């Protein structure tokens, strides 16, 4: 379910900061720098995030016609991650340790040998299994300064915020009762907003509080 089909479950975020003058060119260059780069099993990186085309996680050719749609900038946040169950790692490590001890004739492995063994085991697992892949749609209304992100996961919203800031040098603020109120009311009302306290409605408040 995303921007292009199905019911919509989104998080609304507000963009803070000034847009560059040569917006299209500047952003296109910045997007190219942060386009998703698939994980290579021979690298030590266990996860990576970057941009892909909206609704198409495997499309990493982010040409203008895919990214710009009228007032909207459209992207997908792709996050690939190697995830191995702890028991699998432990079993593979035990097997590798046993083989190393047999080969060397020693009784135990040194700390550095253990570290090296773990690095090798993880590299073997990376070659053996594919990383998990996740892609989430993102639509930015540049006129309104609002971003719709098709996930409500806190972790993914944080990942988006980090990549967005790195890419566009702008920050994202998630919608909330306070953020919405702050945008709706001018500064003199904001002082009032700062002093608001919860109104109790239940029976314990009959003594006159609230």
């Amino acid at each position, binding site marked *: 379910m995303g921007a292009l089909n199905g019911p919509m479950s989104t998080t609304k975020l507000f963009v803070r900061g000034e847009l560059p003058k040569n917006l299209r060119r500047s952003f296109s260059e910045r997007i190219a720098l942060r386009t998703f780069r698939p994980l290579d099993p021979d690298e030590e990186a266990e996860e990576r995030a970057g941009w892909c085309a909206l609704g198409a996680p495997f499309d990493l050719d982010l040409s203008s016609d895919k990214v710009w749609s009228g007032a909207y900038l459209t992207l997908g946040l792709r996050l690939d991650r190697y995830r191995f169950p702890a028991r699998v790692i432990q079993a593979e490590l035990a097997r590798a340790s046993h083989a190393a001890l047999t080969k060397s004739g020693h009784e135990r492995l040194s700390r550095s040998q253990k570290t090296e063994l773990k690095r090798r085991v993880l590299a073997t697992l990376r070659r053996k299994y594919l990383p998990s892949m996740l892609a989430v749609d993102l639509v930015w209304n540049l006129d309104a300064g609002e971003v719709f992100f098709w996930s409500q996961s806190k972790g993914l919203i944080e990942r988006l915020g980090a990549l967005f800031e790195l890419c566009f040098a702008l920050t994202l603020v998630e919608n909330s009762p306070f953020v919405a109120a702050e945008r709706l009311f001018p500064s003199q009302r904001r002082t009032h907003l700062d002093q*608001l306290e919860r109104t109790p409605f239940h029976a314990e408040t009959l003594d006159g509080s609230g």
Partner: protein
Amino acid sequence: MDLVDRIETTRFLGGEFLLWLWFSRDVTGGEIYIKGRGAVLVSLETQIALADPLAEREKVSIRGIDPFGGAEAGEALSTGKLPRKVGLRVVFEQSEWVMTIDSNTLALSGVKLPAQVSQGSEELFYERMRLLEQIHDLVTALYAHFLGVRLSPAWASDVAPALRAWVQSGEVMDQKQFDQLHGKRRARAANGSAAG
């Protein structure tokens, strides 16, 4: 207090907003007039989750034909819980949206958009975005309408006592009084509002 702290300490406003929508439904039948837009019809759907803003883990989730009319929901309110997630149906002009709203973030999930007529993926994308932005604007306008009265003196003097009576005994405010508090009287009290 910095922005992050203020965001956290005012999340209760979302719960109060959803409670006010629920109360408005009981008073007006769900028709809420928003200045500059007209009538928005808000009805409550088949699910609600209530939680104490200070103890989020103590949550009550109710599903059914009318989860808002049952004893369980009333009991949860009477112990200090506020709506946390509410199923809503919003009708404006000829369009209808169904969704769940989260009080903590005002995020909308499972939004069923009005029927779309566009052919071709690009046109369909624009139509879906227009409809998504429209429902977000309507919810923001309803929230602004609520905040207009929440930030006015009428909240403490009239609206909060009426809400309290409704929570405790089911007593519903007179619609004429509700309209006055949310219309002419509010406009004077909340001079300078950007609502609507």
